């Protein structure tokens, strides 16, 4: 399942719900990304999406992950709109028969969400606003998966 929300969410509750009624899943991995204050330099983070296009692009990424790591299931929640430091921005849960697949799929999904999912992120603080673009590290993170394609 994929959802975009402009409301804050509680990662623990999402994990509890995701874990229920699974008799064949042996492993669930999760990742929660939080908005950082950058020592006071950031007071608000704002995330923009392209409704419809963003969900479809995330679904393509998630279906790749599902096939590549033989996932039983996944759940991706991504915030849009204004976010305060300390709030969760993204939650990814992956369910698989064994742990390695669950860990790797979660890692893969986050690498692709960082620089391939249609979101635009603006940081605002006492010194004004700036748009965040993918760093070299984000491109290097994606390249790991491209070079080890099964």
């Amino acid at each position, binding site marked *: 399942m994929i959802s975009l929300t402009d409301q804050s969410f509680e990662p623990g509750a999402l994990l509890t719900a995701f874990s229920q009624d699974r008799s064949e899943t042996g492993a669930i991995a999760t990742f929660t990304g939080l908005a950082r204050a950058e020592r006071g330099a950031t007071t608000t983070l704002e995330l923009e999406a*392209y409704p419809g296009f963003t969900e479809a692009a995330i679904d393509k990424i998630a279906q790749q992950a599902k096939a590549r790591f033989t996932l039983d299931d996944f759940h991706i929640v991504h915030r849009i709109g204004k976010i305060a430091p300390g709030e969760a921005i993204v939650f990814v849960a992956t369910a698989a028969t064994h742990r390695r697949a669950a860990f790797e799929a979660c890692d893969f999904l986050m690498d692709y969400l960082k*620089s*391939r999912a249609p979101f*635009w992120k603006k940081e605002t603080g006492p010194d004004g606003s700036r748009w965040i*673009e*993918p760093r070299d590290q984000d491109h290097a993170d994606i390249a790991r998966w491209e070079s080890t394609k099964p």
Partner: protein
Amino acid sequence: MARVLLFGRLSDVAGWRSRELEADSIAALTALLSDEDADLAEALARPGVQVALDQEIVRGDAVLTARSEVAYLPPMSGG
């Protein structure tokens, strides 16, 4: 009339998010936008800017119709 959408820094630079404009192709539309706003022209020409036509990424030019939706997408950053 094509519906034109700007995202991220592009809408900040241009001062608008959505407009209806007359153009026969993506190349003509980009030229029209660039002619009327030098700052937007510079922002559109930056590396990593992609174009989506009716919510599909297109590389190169494409023909537009009256119901086309064209979105200019700067480098993406989620998570």
